[in-house]
């Protein structure tokens, strides 16, 4: 399988690592930038850089205009109609905006429901919130296939459930939860339950329809979608965020400030305190245009095919256990090699130019469910090829040989 895009669009992939070709397989953590996005950043800083929203001069107008256009692009790309687009520094901040604003809406004994597949970003804020408000954090167990199960969900929803926050795609296993039906089920149980989707992984792999998914909130990060780090998005339903308490207070998010008190600007501006990141927003819009040309359906098919191909190679290696499914892993493969610590695997792979992640992947509750403390994770994206999967296989065989020597 060839890459889905021109590899030459991604200059970093031409880098040598310890003299070897870089095989970048940590895309579930962050993706690389195409030249189109890098030059968008370059152009912004060479021609249009200024602080947005405040300046009367031309540069500030241009920067502001580009920021507004980026928001429009984001709204269109993710099909947001009844949702405001809030730019944040990442998805973690986006989720914290929601959990922070929910503080005043919870009372003792209320329940917040999350699943055991969550990334810490969609777990810790809710756990902390529950503790602060003496509410209960209810953790929805997964099905045998590590998916969200509606019959289980029905049992775990109660009259006290106030918030349901779920991951759209596991950053460890690559499994997608088609949440539109899940959200419908929650809303049918009680329309006042706030629903939150962590779409960090899914946004990079499948077309996202914010309106169609029907959740009140959806969070994602741009750096998993060919854009630089430092830009995340919170989609918040307009009628809910209208009186939401902001997370950050300061410049630009106010309506009026007096010695005695402050009134806040309307959403989304009330959530965007301080100097924003217009270059990042502009770069994200450019990255979305790039993905538009590739087509998200093609992105999905490419990663899925590579994921299955890599799965079939990995299971050929003696002592390898793969936790991701063969089909439906979206190119995200978590695995362990018996008797070898993931950090040793990752270190040795690095000497062959193969970059993978090793650790708990910010999903410790899921790790403990899988009965492990950590794993290796190889994750593919549009610039990866079957040669990259083979390079992973060859490098892993070498790790196995090295540790076999120590075993004798």
């Amino acid at each position: 399988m060839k890459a889905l895009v021109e590899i030459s669009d991604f200059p970093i992939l031409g880098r040598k690592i310890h003299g070897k070709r870089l095989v970048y397989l940590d895309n579930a953590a962050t993706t690389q930038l195409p030249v189109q996005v890098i030059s968008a950043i370059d152009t912004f800083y060479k021609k249009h850089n200024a602080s947005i929203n405040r300046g009367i001069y031309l540069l500030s107008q241009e920067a502001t205009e580009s920021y507004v256009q980026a928001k429009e692009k984001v709204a269109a790309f993710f099909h947001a109609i009844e949702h405001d687009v809030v730019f944040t520094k990442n998805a973690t901040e986006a989720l914290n905006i929601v959990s922070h604003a929910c503080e005043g809406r919870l009372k003792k004994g209320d329940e917040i429901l999350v699943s055991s597949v969550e990334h810490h970003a969609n777990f810790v804020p809710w756990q902390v919130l529950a503790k602060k408000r003496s509410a209960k954090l209810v953790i929805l167990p997964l099905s045998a296939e590590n998916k969200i199960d509606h019959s289980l969900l029905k049992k775990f929803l109660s009259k006290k459930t106030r918030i349901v926050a779920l991951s759209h795609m596991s950053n460890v296993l690559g499994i997608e939860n088609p949440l539109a039906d899940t959200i419908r089920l929650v809303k049918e149980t009680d329309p006042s339950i706030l629903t939150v989707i962590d779409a960090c992984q899914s946004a990079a792999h499948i077309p996202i329809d914010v309106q169609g998914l029907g959740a009140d909130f959806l969070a994602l990060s741009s750096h998993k979608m060919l854009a630089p780090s430092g830009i995340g998005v919170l989609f918040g339903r307009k009628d809910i965020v209208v009186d939401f308490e902001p997370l950050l207070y300061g410049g630009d998010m106010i309506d009026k400030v007096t010695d005695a008190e402050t009134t806040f600007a309307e959403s989304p501006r009330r959530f965007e305190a301080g100097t924003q990141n217009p270059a990042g927003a502009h770069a994200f819009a450019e990255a979305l245009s790039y993905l538009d040309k590739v087509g998200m359906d093609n992105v999905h098919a490419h990663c899925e095919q590579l994921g299955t191909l890599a799965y079939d190679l990995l299971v050929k290696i003696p002592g390898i256990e793969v936790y991701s499914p063969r089909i439906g892993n979206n190119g995200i493969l978590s695995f362990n090699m018996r008797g070898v610590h993931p950090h040793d695997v990752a270190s040795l792979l690095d000497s062959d130019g193969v970059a993978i992640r090793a650790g708990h992947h910010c999903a410790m509750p899921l790790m403990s469910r899988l009965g492990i403390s950590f794993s290796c994770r190889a994750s593919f994206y549009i610039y990866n090829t079957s040669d990259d999967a083979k390079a992973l296989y060859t490098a892993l065989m070498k790790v196995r040989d090295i540790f076999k020597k120590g075993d004798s």
Partner: protein
Amino acid sequence: MIDPDIPAESMYREHILDHYTHPRNYGEIKNASTAFSGRNPLCGDEVKIELKIEKGRIVDVGFVGGGCAISKASASLITEGIKGKTIEEVKKMKKEDVLKLLEIPISPVRLKCALLSFKVLENAITAYEKKRDEHG
């Protein structure tokens, strides 16, 4: 020797793999005078070191935990190196001495793995001395 451009392969020499798969002084010891645990922030791996000290000399040592090859081999080599030494001798040890014991180039990201048990050892001795001084 710390070198950012060291390919990891050079860390996994035969003696390191040998100490990883057959760690020396592995397991708890009887009548330990002091014990201390520490965690590697990189991976969460924990190492516990127990020392039996008589007349200021380490007469027995044991460790448990340590996940990766580098941290486990390092714990094995360190415990081997300090057995029979006096506390004063061990207190003079520096991290360079530990890296010398390992005899491999360490990449900066793995330095915490290599030095985890050394840090735990230092804390174990500090805890022992504190307890000893408090009890006269």
